[in-house]
């Protein structure tokens, strides 16, 4: 028994060695480095100078980061409900499994498969004020990406357009997993399809809904490619999502210490959000479908 455990341990650590290396060097060590960096000033060219809490003070008071957080919050509030609702609608349509549904399903997921940066560049042309497809179609000149009121909604719309198909798949699987008996029984009791949807389908989709919301929020909070190609932070920083702000601070303005501070704060927020969601939903998701 003893020697087997020893051998087991040796084998285990051999098997674990590569991933352990990866996790330690590329995930854990950076956390330490970013904390260290946040206390220094570096413009990528000169020496790295210790500045104590200067960066923290600056980032927390100068408003650019606060603006990014607000913009990101607004963005998440625009994107997640929209893509969730649309995904749910599409899934309920596809769940009827009319002939040809598989084709529609494939089509809807196409945008999600593509590189977000390529999608963003494509939409940059579609929304271009001069020579853009959308404006040509409308016959009017609309400043989709440079009007401060329109820029964030448009970036959100592109993101929703990209994600709906992906969300649809999850809801579709969830809907199809509901046993038919429940629906049949309800139909026998005279429930209309709308009633069945609201009282049976939706509640039983809670786990899926939870998953879709959580992953939706976390991925929306990290959108970068779309902003980079469409607006570069937007008119008056109206589309300066957090991931873009961090990039711009580090590699545009060459203020790497500040970028490190922002990264840490973002991390803290995401962790808090994830934990809060887990706690909130933990009590509400298990259903026995046996």
């Amino acid at each position, binding site marked *: 028994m003893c020697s087997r455990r020893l051998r087991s341990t040796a084998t285990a650590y051999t098997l674990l060695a590569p991933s352990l290396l990866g996790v330690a060097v590329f995930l854990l060590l950076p956390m330490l480095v970013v904390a260290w960096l946040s206390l220094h000033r570096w*413009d*990528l*060219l*000169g*020496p790295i100078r210790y500045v104590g809490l200067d960066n923290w003070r600056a980032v927390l008071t100068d408003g650019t980061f606060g603006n990014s957080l607000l913009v990101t919050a607004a963005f998440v509030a625009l994107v997640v409900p929209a893509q969730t609702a649309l995904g749910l609608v599409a899934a309920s349509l596809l769940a009827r499994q009319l002939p040809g549904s598989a084709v529609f399903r494939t089509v809807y997921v196409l945008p999600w498969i593509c590189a977000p940066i390529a999608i963003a560049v494509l939409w940059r042309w579609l929304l271009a*004020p*001069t020579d853009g497809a959308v404006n040509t179609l409308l016959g009017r*000149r609309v*400043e989709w*990406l*440079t009007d*401060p009121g329109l820029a964030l909604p448009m970036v959100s719309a592109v993101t929703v357009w990209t994600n709906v198909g992906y969300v649809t798949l999850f809801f579709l699987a969830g809907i199809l997993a509901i046993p038919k008996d429940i629906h049949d029984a309800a139909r026998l009791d005279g429930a209309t399809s709308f009633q069945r949807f609201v009282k049976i389908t939706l509640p039983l989709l809670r786990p899926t809904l939870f998953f879709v919301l959580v992953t939706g929020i976390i991925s929306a909070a990290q959108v970068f490619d779309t902003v980079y190609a469409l607006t*570069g932070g937007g*008119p*008056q*920083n109206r589309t300066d999502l957090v991931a873009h702000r961090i990039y711009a601070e580090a*590699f*545009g*303005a*060459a*203020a790497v210490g500040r970028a490190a501070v922002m990264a840490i704060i973002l991390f803290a927020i995401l962790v808090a959000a994830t934990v809060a969601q887990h706690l909130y939903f933990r009590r509400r998701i298990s259903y026995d479908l046996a």
Partner: protein
Amino acid sequence: MTGRMRFSTLIALSVVAVMALLIAGAVVLGRDHEPAGRTVITVRLWDQQVAQAYRRSFDEFTRRRPDIEVRVNVVAYSSYFDALRTDVAGGSADDIFWISNAYFAPYADSGRLIGVPPRPDWESSVVEQFTRNGTLWGVPQLTDAGIALYYNADLLATAGVDPAALDSLRWSPDDAQDTLRPMLARLTAGDGRRWAYNAGNDLQGIYLNYIGSAGGVFSVGDRFAFDNPQASQAFTYLVRLINVDKVAPPASDTNDNGDFSRNMFLQGRMALFQSGTYNLAQIAANAPFRWGVALMPAGPAGRVSVTNGIAAAGNSASKHPDAMRAVLAWMGSAKGNSYLGANGAAVPAVLAAQRAYFDFWAANGVDVAPFFEVLRGPRIPAPGGQGFAAGFDAMKPYFDEMFLGRLDVTAALARAQRAANAATGP
């Protein structure tokens, strides 16, 4: 039993083999084609036309020094300085790279460039621009000369305008003295897809000259100082041209796209294009219409242009410092630098090499005098300094809004100047 053991080992080995193969592929891809016995020096710049001139120049150089091969690397201007910073910082930048007055200070101050002894046969304004703390930090390569007005002769003819009339245009906050605006109105088609002029958020081509011609300043030393009444007049005038008179493309097209107006001009959708010699070769090569060059419009304080120079800096971290210096010496020699002028790509900064430039354009029937004549008068200095990149980034949102007509000029200049100087930092 033994068979099975060998199978799993076989699998393990094949996985290793696959990875080895892929790694080998990467190594092959990564191999620099270092020709045997030769040192390779790389040169980075942003101008496609000039790059071709350099290639010819370096062919001649390699004939004289067969042990050194020079490769030219072109990086788009829009990302040139961001990429340069990260590359130099990461130690993977080219041996020699172009620097501009606006962006070279941090590199010099952090010891990334090698000092160069100045020579009397180099254009003095360029030497001055690239001298910092008593040292010259690059070999002058070209001087931009001044700003002038390219015009589409066909469009002018259609509108019944004589090109000679362009030389006497003047702009003024006082409508009675303003001859530019009426001219631009004549040359605009009004359909929203064709314009008369490229007024816009263009530092070198447009607004520095307007500020100077109004008698104002843009910067003083390393600090931004454009919040002054004369500059305010200049910007107010420009913003009006774009948003009220609509004789220039909307700022939403030009704010983030430095090539938009040039492309419109080349497509025959813009009658007048105010710019410098840095676009001359492109226009000559690509314009499908008759065109010419006139003097740029004068302002209340006369005709004041910016002039800029480009230098080639040596990377202090180069792996082949001796070869690099040899190439730099060639680039700073009359013979080496003359190639830049020979095809009219740029005005060489080595005085003896400038002849080639004038000869070329004269032979092609293009009068480049306007670019040089404008320099006989007062000039406005090109900005630069230690924190210029950060400052320029910080003022961009305000300038964008101002040109879009959404932020009042006085407020925009005040806020932008504050933000820019704050970002320039200690």
